[in-house]
């Protein structure tokens, strides 16, 4: 019993130490935000107030912030899965956008299916994202091309193709927006915090985190994936199918992006607008980096990111901060989280043998 508590204490201490890096990053990012506001705003106090308190001042903003975190959670999970297996997926933008698009047009085509249609449409979107990413995995397995480059390039091309499809064959002539038709009412997720946009997709995101956690740490496949990521030579030596684990994690990674795209449409947008998801893929990557590829940490990381983003929007609306300044602040955050040095602060160093 005592032993058990001691063990728990050790785990908690280790977790805290491992989190120091993340805390430092958040701290520096917030400090940068203050400094930038002082420099760039005529009314820094007002700006800061909206930046920090804006997202939580009422249900509307708070709900929207949570809603914004949903695709980030899916993206963060996707990236984490790839990273855990030692692969890089930089194609989130295209995977999410195409997943959203395919889910939308499927929903339009399956309008009469009702709730079964929701599942099928989302699955199709998920598979679209997954297959796009898996392509890079296959290329790596066959010809040892860098999946980092190919996923990025494929994604860039796909974004243009999807934009063309939305603006061309699938455009809804009834609106002025460059967007597809709206999905049927029966496909839309319920709003759970009126008047905000927050929908029940939030529950799906939380469940997804749980599923990924269980997959990575409780299943045989997750075990093999992690070992392959930690040491591919050891995995091969132990008889793990290394070829499979160059493709499968990429598929999963893209699939979560695709699902995130579908969720954004069904929960928030209801129609696939041209370039509606710009930035979501990259932000998912940032979220995974802050979370250090741990599925459980993806939720707070995504919330942090959404908080910064909606803070920036709030400051934009209510004070003299421009869109550019808000973007600069976000860029600073992104820059900081990608610094591996800061990530390592306080983490338990492995003994060199």
């Amino acid at each position, binding site marked *: 019993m005592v032993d058990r508590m001691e063990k728990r204490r050790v785990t908690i201490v280790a977790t805290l130490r491992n989190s120091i890096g993340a805390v430092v990053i958040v701290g520096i990012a917030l400090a940068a935000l203050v400094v930038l506001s002082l420099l760039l705003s005529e009314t820094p106090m007002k700006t800061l107030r909206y930046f920090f308190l804006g997202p939580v001042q009422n249900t509307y903003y708070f709900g929207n912030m949570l809603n914004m975190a949903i695709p980030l959670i899916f993206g963060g999970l996707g990236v984490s899965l790839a990273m855990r297996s030692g692969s890089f997926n930089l194609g989130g933008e295209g995977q999410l956008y195409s997943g959203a698009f395919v889910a939308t047009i499927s929903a339009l085509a399956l309008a009469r299916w009702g709730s079964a249609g929701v599942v099928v449409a989302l699955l199709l979107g998920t598979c679209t994202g997954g297959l796009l990413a898996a392509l890079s995995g296959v290329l790596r397995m066959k010809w040892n091309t860098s999946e980092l480059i190919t996923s990025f390039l494929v994604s860039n091309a796909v974004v243009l193709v999807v934009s063309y499809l939305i603006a061309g064959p699938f455009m809804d002539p009834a609106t002025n927006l460059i967007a597809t038709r709206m999905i049927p009412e029966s496909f839309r997720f319920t709003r759970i915090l009126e008047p905000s946009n927050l929908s029940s997709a939030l529950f799906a995101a939380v469940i997804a985190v749980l599923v990924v956690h269980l997959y990575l740490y409780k299943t*045989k*496949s997750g075990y093999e994936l992690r070992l392959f990521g930690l040491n591919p*030579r*050891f995995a091969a030596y132990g008889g*793990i199918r290394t070829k499979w684990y160059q493709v499968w994690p990429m598929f999963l990674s893209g699939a979560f992006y695709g699902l995130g795209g579908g969720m954004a449409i069904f929960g928030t947008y209801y129609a696939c607008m041209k370039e509606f998801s710009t930035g979501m893929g990259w932000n998912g990557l940032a979220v995974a980096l802050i979370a250090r590829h741990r599925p459980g940490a993806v939720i707070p990381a995504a919330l942090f990111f959404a908080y910064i983003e909606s803070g920036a929007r709030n400051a934009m609306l209510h004070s003299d901060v421009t869109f550019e300044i808000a973007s600069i602040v976000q860029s600073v955050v992104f820059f900081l989280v990608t610094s591996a040095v800061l990530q390592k602060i306080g983490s338990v160093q492995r*003994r060199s*043998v």
Partner: protein
Amino acid sequence: MEHAVEMRGIVKIYPETGLRANDGVDLTLNKGQILCLAGENGAGKTTLMKVLYGLEKPDAGTISVMGNPVSITSPLQANRLGIGMVHQHFMLVDDFTVAQNVTLGKEPLKGRFSYDLKGAADAVDAVIRKHRFSIDATKRVGSLTVGQKQQVEIVKMLYRDVDILILDEPTAVLTEQEIESLFITLRALAEHGTSLILITHKLHEITTISDRVAIMRQGAMVGDFPTDSVDGKQISRLMMGQSVSLVVDRLPYTPVQHPVLRFDNVSVLKRNQQRPLLNGVSFTARSGEILGFAGVGGNGLGVLEAVLGGFLPISSGAIVHKDEDISRLDSHALRKRGLAYVPADRLQVGSALQAAVSENLIVDARNEFSRHGVMQRKKIEQHAQSLLKTYSVKGSPSMPIGTLSGGNIQKVILAREITQYQDYIVFSEPTWGLDIASSRFVYERMVQLRDEGAAVLLISSNLDEILAVSDRVIVMYRGTIVAVLESEELRHVTKEDMGAYMLGLRQQEAPHG
């Protein structure tokens, strides 16, 4: 004669293992002399040369170059002092030309910033012509043969006006003709006044090329002679040492055996290489015996390990396990058939350092610890607990294995593989870097496995170990089997005889294991 290099009392201790790689070593190199530094693997030759080249910082000792005491802290500084080193593994950029590779880091400039490509090609061409190398300065390095690449490495050093040149096992990857032309080059260099140190453990090379030979064993200098005053036997005796210090209790060798694993004329030839890594190797590993594979590093032991582990496909021949051809199987398929294997590289191959001990323990038995794809945490934990206890490993199941000591990591690997084995088990360099107690533990386990009826394949460049535990011994030299020693022969074989086989001085007629 003036000394080019004088090293006195060099001590180098690796803090990770506490290993005294160099224990008060003295070495002098005269100007224009070719010195061979000989010794078994792990004797400390490379460490000593790394100290001279500024790659390792010595814990004690002094170095003087051309009579001046110096402290060498980096290869760059070594270059400035006129010392150059050609590593065993080439450090070249395949997509650059010879001239670009050679001038890398010391590029001739046009103006202040722009790289003078033409000037580089001319300068390198001048060096090549002066020393009569056979390479073209404008050719892409990727298109060269192994021998030519080595010439590029040497030219790289000569371009930097090096007059003391260290070559680490320069002949390891060369064909006979390439070795011959290398030796002509080296002699010409020595005549020009360059002083050379060759790290090698090949006797005939020592006698053909060197003026002097220095022999190291277990971190100490055990001999230093003019080459014409010693013969091969003497050198080999000094390299191998005298006594077999390891004795392991075991049951007498029982000849009631059946074949388990058979190699039939197996060869491995890699693309772009003329020399096969394994050349027509045939043997049979039988149940209830420890079959030892002896050899000096680079003569095929590592390749044999890779083939047995399923990492390296064979080019011809067949591998047969229990009457089934397993030549084409990869690690995954071999593991399914019950391959158990303790790899030489226990940190990079044998474990995932950041993963928990318990996770490391089940890698080849994943299926036994999962039901419907879900890992059985309790069972894994108990399995780890009991193995750690049986093998007296200091550590707990949830610790990352990388936090354990080298000896304990090896015990974890042994525990895993021994639990997993079905009828044969491969040990490669199982005691490398381990202390005496841990080594003893490994030997006892091997003998126990043999007594249980396993076919134990022991691949080791440690001759003491081979002689102490093997029931039969196969000696490899340049990828072929040069001798097979049956148990009765092993009783009266001397290390000198073994050394002669291992160093290619002697060969049995048509050996078949």
